[in-house]
């Protein structure tokens, strides 16, 4: 175990042979901004950078030594004056999962939608599957625990609630979150580098759209501040 500093973060670092390194916070701080900064630095010794709230994993490509630590410690975090703002159009459909959410929150679908479209949400992180977005900022009464038995198939574009997060499924997959609607936009495009422009801390606003508008915007690309 070693202790290092990246920007203002006090971190501990544990090496697992020549394979990987795990970095944790000594102050219980969220590490997503640090992992984004390490990823952007494209350090020669890292093959993969995976960041979660409490831990960063660096898969090693080459030996990790004193120079590597210096490289890590010289990383500066992005100082953005203002986060970007993204608007996600959502067609709030009549998915059967709504009933469970209404039961859990003791609020009606309409009340919940009203609150969702007037709340400033925040893009938190990637994870789970390519293009899956974890979006934070949900009111506490919507923090539904995940389904005991995951649904076999959740369609691409689904907006769902799981724990403290609103999620967007960019790929169809099995999933344990509660579906509340669909977003027609492509937020994750593997023909682009990087596949998405969203960064930790960006503001996400939901805009309720009709089924017709949903179909008009299908396959449009997500763009900062506007869409379509």
């Amino acid at each position: 175990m070693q202790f290092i500093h990246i920007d203002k973060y006090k971190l501990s670092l544990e090496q697992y042979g020549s394979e990987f390194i795990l970095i944790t916070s000594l102050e219980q701080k969220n590490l997503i901004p640090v992992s984004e900064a390490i990823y952007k630095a494209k350090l020669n010794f890292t093959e993969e950078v995976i960041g979660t709230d409490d831990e960063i994993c660096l898969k090693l490509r080459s030996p990790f030594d004193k120079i590597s630590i210096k490289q890590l410690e010289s990383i500066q975090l992005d100082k953005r004056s203002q986060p970007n703002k993204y608007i996600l159009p959502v067609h709030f459909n009549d998915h059967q999962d709504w009933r469970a959410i209404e039961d859990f929150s003791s609020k009606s679908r309409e009340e919940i939608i009203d609150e969702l479209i007037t709340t400033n949400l925040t893009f938190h992180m990637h994870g789970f599957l390519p293009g899956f977005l974890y979006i934070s900022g949900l009111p506490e009464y919507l923090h539904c625990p995940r389904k005991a038995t995951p649904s076999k198939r959740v369609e691409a574009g689904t907006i769902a609630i799981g724990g403290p997060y609103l999620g967007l499924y960019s790929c169809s997959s099995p999933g344990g979150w509660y579906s509340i609607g669909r977003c027609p936009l492509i937020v994750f495009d593997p023909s682009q580098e990087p596949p998405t422009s969203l960064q930790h801390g960006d503001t996400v606003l939901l805009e309720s759209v009709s089924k017709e508008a949903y179909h008009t915007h299908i396959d449009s690309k997500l763009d900062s501040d506007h869409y379509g």
Partner: protein
Amino acid sequence: MGSCILLQPGALTTLQDNGRSGYAQYAIPSGGVMDVVAAHKAQQLVGNDPDWPIVECTLKGPKIKFESETKIALTGGDMQWKLNRELVERNAVINVQANDILSSGFTKDQPRSYLAIRGKITTRYHYNSCSTYGPAQLGHKQGQALAAGDKITWVESHMHVTNQSLVNQNLSTEYIHLHRGPEYNLLPEESRHRLVSEQYKVGPDSNRMGARLLGPKLISGTIKKSVPVLPGFMQLPPSGFPIVVLQDGQTTGGYPRIAFLKSQELNAFNRLPIGQLFRFQLVS
């Protein structure tokens, strides 16, 4: 241009290469060949660059009609490969002519077999890799496995077949070496002991994302939040049966990471026939 056509697809036949590294940040798994050693050996035999696309066959091989003359090599599992109904040798260069038919059956041992075709297969790349990854429609055929009627085409190669002796990497699958993972300490003493003293086997519902192990049930504490995972990590879900994360596995997970396999050990692990008993050995 050379070409061949799939008459029968086999159980799961996909185009792969060495995968797309560097995108786990976006939850894109590296993917790529499951048995790097066997795949590279086949490529070397036909004089291909090891980074070029190769055909990975799982459990039951395909039936393929060649439309042009070329050289091929077959490595990995014994899928009883036949050329025009005659058994052919694995780990050797085979000359094929137009209209030759390569056929195969169920594997007799390792779950994966590789077919290298001399030349560079034409395909679609995402992040410098053609590796087929279904969930995000990445790589060849937008992430779909090869199907009957699919054509494989390639640009003929002018690279020399090197006669350098092949490094014969004998990967032992009798014991699979394990290292203590970040949450190894969550295993009580009895589970630590069972993990390495009793036998396991790879369960039938395993896939390119993960190998579900069958064997003695383990218990462990839980973790609160999702943490990073890499191919080779052994997770312990509440069922008590460990899962080894494989090439197409998720990049984060909410289960304790009790152990990990290094790349070469993962290569050996991926060679284990489904259902064959083996033991783990803890190394530090």
